[in-house]
């Protein structure tokens, strides 16, 4: 077709938004939660974060060069930085460097560029990276630590951190279970949820982030603040976050009411694991979620229900990544069936009958 050769038609006005601005705003929204968590988990987390983001940018550059696309111009859209950032946030904070690098290869190389680059991928790149790592290296990927805030006593210094991240010297004494993991393990030992809940941090600590978990997921409050910031900037809408959390909460609350010994409560599910990070920053990924608001509600609800199902019945204690990936696969179909009704037409696409009032 010959569009490029003739003068472009209107409009002769454009909003000031751009892909770069959008991605940068998301990074900005992630910054407070990330900074706080980097502080909580100390130098090893900072090293892993740097390595992972760096690796993602390097893999993106390599893929772009291979595909003969403009490298610098495309890198400056920040999409690779964002993928690396989210991937790092989903890794255990003291994981070795190669987890970040390998994760980056799968996230950017396989999930993004093998499908055609930005905008073409079916699955969320960061979650593909994390999931491949989790399935391939389950032990390393579930080696949680309790927070060791920077400069506090017992926190690793920069040199110890190098040993942890690059030398593979994970100190044994620091390992801890995540709340979700703990409850699952205890259940398998026939200890009811009502009893095992006594060992997990209180709701307030869980909200603030003072708990074991992935590098960037623990501070529900700061992630919520970032999410609200994105909503105020109209980068995301409420549809996906609310339906993800609503779906999860509803399932958990109903089953908790039926059997509290077997099922954890709705509020526990909301504040633990990567619920907030998933709801506000991962499920809302533009490329891999539906475009219509109705579709987004269905998508979010599906994510929420799947998260609960996986956490409750599957082999893994956490299910955000799996749930999002499963719903990613459904997004194109959801899109097909949730197209908005066209002006002057019925939902089936037929012309409206005359005299039908719409308000």
């Amino acid at each position, binding site marked *: 077709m010959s569009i490029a050769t003739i*003068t472009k*038609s209107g409009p002769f*006005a*454009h909003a000031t938004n751009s*892909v770069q601005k959008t991605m940068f705003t998301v990074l900005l929204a992630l910054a407070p939660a990330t900074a706080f968590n980097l502080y909580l988990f100390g130098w090893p987390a900072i090293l892993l974060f740097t390595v992972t983001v760096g690796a993602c940018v390097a893999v993106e550059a390599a893929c772009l060069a291979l595909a003969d696309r403009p490298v610098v111009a495309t890198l400056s859209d920040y999409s690779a930085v964002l993928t690396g950032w989210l991937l790092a946030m989903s890794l255990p904070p003291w994981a070795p460097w190669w987890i970040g690098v390998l994760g980056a290869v799968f996230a950017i190389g396989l999930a993004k560029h093998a499908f055609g680059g930005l905008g073409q991928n079916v699955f969320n790149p960061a979650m593909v990276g994390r999931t491949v790592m989790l399935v391939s290296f389950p032990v390393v990927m579930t080696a949680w630590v309790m927070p060791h805030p920077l400069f506090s006593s017992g926190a690793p210094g920069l040199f110890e951190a190098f040993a942890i991240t690059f030398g593979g010297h994970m100190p044994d004494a620091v390992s801890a279970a995540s709340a979700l993991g703990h409850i699952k393990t205890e259940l398998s030992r026939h200890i009811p949820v009502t009893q095992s809940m006594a060992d997990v941090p209180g709701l307030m600590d869980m909200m603030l982030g003072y708990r074991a978990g992935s590098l960037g997921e623990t501070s529900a409050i700061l992630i919520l603040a970032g999410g609200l910031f994105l909503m105020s900037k109209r980068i995301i*809408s409420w549809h996906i976050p609310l339906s993800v959390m609503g779906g999860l909460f509803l399932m958990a609350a109903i089953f908790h009411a039926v059997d509290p010994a077997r099922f954890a409560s709705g509020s526990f599910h909301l504040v633990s694991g990567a619920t907030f990070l998933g709801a506000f920053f991962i499920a809302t990924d533009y490329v891999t979620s539906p*475009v219509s608001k109705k579709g987004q509600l269905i998508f979010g609800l599906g994510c929420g229900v799947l998260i609960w199902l996986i956490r409750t019945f599957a082999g893994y204690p956490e299910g955000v990544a799996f749930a999002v990936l499963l719903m990613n696969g459904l997004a194109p179909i959801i899109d097909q069936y949730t197209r*908005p009704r066209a002006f002057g037409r019925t939902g089936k696409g037929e012309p409206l*009958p005359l005299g039908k009032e719409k308000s």
Partner: protein
Amino acid sequence: MKLFPIRGGIHPDYRKERTSEKAIVALPMPSALYIPLQQHIGAPAEVLVAEGELVKKGQMIARSGGAVSSPQHAPSSGRIMAVTEVAAPHPSGLAQSTIILETDGKDEWGDLPEPIADPFTVDPHVIHDRVAQAGIVGMGGAAFPSAVKLNLGTQKKLEILLLNGAECEPYLTCDDRVMREYPDEVIDGARIMAHALGTPRVVIGIEQNKPQAIDIMTRAASAFPNVEVVGVPVQYPMGSERHLVQAITGLETPVRKLTADLGIVVHNVATARAVHHAIRFGRPLVARVVTVSGGAIREPNNILTPIGARVADLVEFCGGFAARPESVVNGGPMMGQPLPSLEVPVVKGTSGILALTAEEINDRPASACIRCGSCVTICPCGLSPVDMAAFVRKDNLEGAARLGVMDCFSCGSCSWVCPSHIPLVHYFNYAKGMLNDLDRELRKNEHVKALVEARTQRLEKAAEAKRAALAARKPASDNAPSSTSGEAKTATEEKANA
């Protein structure tokens, strides 16, 4: 008055303040006027004058060329220089038949039809004929012959004449100024049109970013209980006929139907004023108010312009360019058309001439679609631009048509909002053009097929008759061979003709 929400829409930078406080000024009469024979939707007008002829202002110089057409009148007095091909105010820049009038500077009116003394007692067709004679077309930009629309009352029972003063396009202030400076003329024109249409009510919809216009018009309308002024939300594209009808009445016009099917006819406020002039003074449409604005214009203004003045005359009157214009646009920035040069005339549908800088347009090279869904959220037609564009890019026009690309009216909201700066409207215009061509081709083929079939049948019938005649004449024993040869002959004949 209760208003109804419309779907989607955007809130661009309006930038109307550049001209909204500038009172309408008349353009000094240019030495030459270029009056295209086609300034409207429908058949071009037919020339009535010859080179060298002297004409007076308001004299008809080209008559209506069909049922849907419009005559042209001399916008000033002077001599016909030529009837020739001149570049049209269209992106193609193709030449179009145009009457060139050399003005004599006297601006003398010729003999005009008598004013209609009491238009509210005359038969509607009298109003209709006068409006048709006056060459009035929709002045909001579409330029559809107004008389045709005024005739709708004879076919349908109509409830409301909706006067469109939304002026939702950024920059444009010509309708705003007309309403503020000539409220009584607009309302009188509207009431005359309502009488012609047989509508008991007149509603004037004005976007709320024009508070003075709302105020002035409300006061002017207060004398007439059946005329109501309504401030509608500032939301592009509120001025789209179907969307304004929905906002004010809650009625959604079905596709392939007219708002008139719902009992509502929409006319622009400037059109109403032109009707007032035609009925009360017998004056045809020979001038209009044009907003000349944009960052590249030194002194933006609202200018009363004779039809046929060149865009260059307007730009010069505004002090020329202060900066290099990236595009010169005929109309508003959202739905206006780029002009190929400044040497094209202002026509009846020209609401604005915008010389826009690259900074104002803020166009950037398109990057990859990130499926953010903004275009789906804001599409006022409820379409999915992201998916339609994907089909058009692969030249899958059928797919795009299935998703409703033909329902798109190119309001430009999706292109405006796209963070990847994908020229979505451009894609859809391309698809619509191609689909229209295909449709025309298909209909032509069907027509040809029908003709061929009819011919075959006719030939067969003739052969049959011949055979029957032969059989009747010859004895029964000779019948068989001769009939075979007859059939063979018909077959050869058909082959030769095919």
